[in-house]
């Protein structure tokens, strides 16, 4: 059993705090995305697990549905369009007194007709004379509503709002924009670690220094070059290869640095043994270094993938906004503008964009953590 010290308790509490601070909004977003849009607009997600009391207005059917039984005319139906499991406990017939009657009691209208409403929404409206009005009467009910969830929001968002396409677009951006720098940088990091050449240290220093340059500073110059290039060949400056190259460029320094950090922890005697065995640098790289670096490749892949996946700025600058190119984050931002009132669309869209990061994080978290501390601890 570990000793409980102040610092350990404190750090555990802090950890708990962080976990809560991250889990609660995510969970809330997820629940909200599964709720009915009308309910979502009026109550918080935390109310959706318990039976809630709602006051609603329904209208009875009109004269078409009346039947004659003996001396009386009846309209028998149900207030609810579909069975949602709601349970009525009181009802009323005027807006002044919306919970005047218990369920099962009979209420008397001014025109001498009487109505009885039952728990499940069934009602019987009874009249001595024939019903004349096309429109039914308003009935106010106080009902207990059980928790209910629906996937309708997802259908709506993925198919009708074009988020599904944006989701695929983001994949089309993120996968190459992760793999290309990883491949380039693995060669680069190997050379920086295990090959002797003039100016190697200077090159390494340049890489580390360029980690400091903010990406935002490079956007305009790079786009200018793209525009000139596009104009020269008569193609659009905004395209998938363009954004792949942009992400590759922006990711080069950090990816190289992380990989270099890892590669230099490989024992130098092993690399020398390979040389004595007759391996060229290429052999050593492919047959020794790459197989031993898979965990670190995986972790760097995850870091870069998540970065590209969550990116908005680069995507906005280097891709057009038409449906075949727009990425998820840009699409969400667009929806925020045009459908800002429709919470069900925003919550669902946000959650869709989170699914991939969440999946990656939960399935590969040990690589993820190793990537963050690459080189600082032994793996």
């Amino acid at each position, binding site marked *: 059993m570990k000793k409980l010290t102040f610092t350990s308790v404190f750090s555990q509490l802090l950890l708990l705090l962080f976990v809560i601070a991250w889990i609660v909004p995510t969970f809330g977003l997820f629940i909200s995305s599964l709720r009915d849009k009308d309910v979502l607009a009026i109550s918080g997600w935390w109310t959706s697990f318990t039976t809630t009391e709602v006051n609603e207005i329904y209208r009875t059917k009109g004269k078409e549905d009346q039947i004659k039984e003996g001396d009386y005319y009846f309209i028998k139906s149900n207030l609810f369009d579909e069975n949602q499991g709601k349970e009525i406990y009181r009802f009323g017939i005027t807006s002044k007194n919306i919970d005047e009657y218990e369920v099962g009691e009979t209420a008397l209208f001014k025109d001498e007709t009487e109505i009885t409403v039952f728990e499940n929404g069934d009602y019987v409206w009874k009249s001595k004379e024939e019903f004349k009005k096309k429109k039914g009467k308003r009935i106010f009910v106080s009902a207990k509503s059980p928790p209910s969830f629906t996937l309708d929001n997802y259908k709506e968002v993925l198919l009708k709002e074009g988020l599904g396409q944006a989701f695929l677009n983001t994949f089309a951006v993120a996968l190459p924009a992760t793999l290309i720098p990883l491949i380039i940088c693995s060669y680069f990091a190997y050379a920086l670690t295990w090959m002797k050449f003039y100016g190697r240290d200077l090159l390494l220093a340049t890489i580390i220094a360029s980690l400091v340059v903010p990406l935002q500073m490079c956007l305009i110059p790079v786009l200018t070059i793209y525009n000139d290039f596009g104009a020269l060949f008569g193609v659009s400056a905004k395209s998938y290869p363009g954004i792949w190259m942009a992400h590759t460029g922006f990711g080069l320094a950090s990816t190289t640095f992380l990989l270099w950090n890892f590669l230099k922890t490989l024992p130098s005697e092993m690399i020398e*043994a390979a040389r*004595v*065995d*007759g391996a060229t640098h290429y052999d050593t790289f492919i047959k020794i270094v790459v197989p031993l670096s898979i965990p670190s490749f995986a972790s760097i892949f995850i870091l870069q993938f998540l970065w590209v996946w969550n990116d908005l700025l680069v995507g906005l600058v280097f891709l057009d906004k038409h449906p075949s190119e727009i990425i998820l984050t840009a699409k969400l931002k667009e929806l925020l503008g045009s459908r800002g009132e429709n919470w069900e669309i925003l919550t669902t869209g946000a959650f869709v964009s989170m699914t991939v990061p969440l999946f990656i994080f939960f399935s590969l978290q040990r690589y993820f953590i190793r990537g963050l501390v690459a080189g600082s601890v032994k793996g």
Partner: protein
Amino acid sequence: MADIELSSINKFFGKTHVIKDFSLNIKSQSFTTLVGPSGCGKSTLLRMIAGLEETNSGKISIGGEEVNNLPPKERNIAMVFQSYALYPHMTVFDNMAFGLKLEKRPKDEVKDRVHEAAKILQIEDYLLRKPKQLSGGQRQRVAIGRAITRKPKVFLFDEPLSNLDAALRVQMRIELAKLHDHLDATMVYVTHDQTEAMTLSDEIVVLDQGEISQQGKPIELYNNPKNLFVAGFIGSPKMNFVNAKISSIDHNKVEINILGSKITISKTIKSNENTDIIFGIRPEDIIITDSSDYDFQGKAFVVEKLGSNTFIYLDNEGDPIVVEASGDSLIKVGDDVKIKFDLNKTNLFNSSNKIRID
């Protein structure tokens, strides 16, 4: 034929002059050991022979061919590293076959050669295991096996046994000796362990700060160290050193003042009267005596009983004097011990330039 010839080799790390105008001839099929304290340049030398380290000047040839500008694989060498340097993701078989596969040898030949090497080293049962499933001794066998499969003319060993525990080290030492008999290859062995050097070598090269201190057969170095450094380095426990002074020289007889008494040695020496010298004598060349004719008397403050013999440490002003006695010696800590030096086995060194004078 693969004799190794090093002529006037220099090596700098930055401004540090690590190997100083070094020349050495290693005979074909010999077992030569480079030995010295850490930092003396012995590993650097080995790595230069291997081609892993560049030489700043001088010439290295293997089998008569200059190899200065050849990469390791074209030098016909194999190297065994201290940390084994196995490829952790490959099986033992793949580790041993790696070099052969790179040479694009036919599969059958690769298989035969690996099995042959595995048989010599008795690791046939482990061929399909990964290095991490092996013990230290087994890993080092795999590392040696990897060297054998390529059938090189020169084997280079860089402190191969220093990661093993004492018992395994003795066992592997014997196996290395057997291996040398078995294979007709030149072996160059680097170690800081003088026992390994003494037991394995045909020839020992003692290095001190990038230069050869002495070179010769193990027993020659033991009996006739050329200088104080070699005398102190070879032998365990160390040779005893006592400050002394030459009082008179009479053609082939020398009288010296030592530890308050006078002794006469029958030797011709290259020195003058009244010079300060260092008198060296090995623990086994000191006789414990009861008679009144003794050279030194001291109190025993440590008694190491090893079973076969006993080492007794006697109190002295400078370093203690170590005496070897028989295993059944009854001397206890605190006893006064009288000793006499075997005057045929003395080593005399000039105390200013540390060179042997007798």
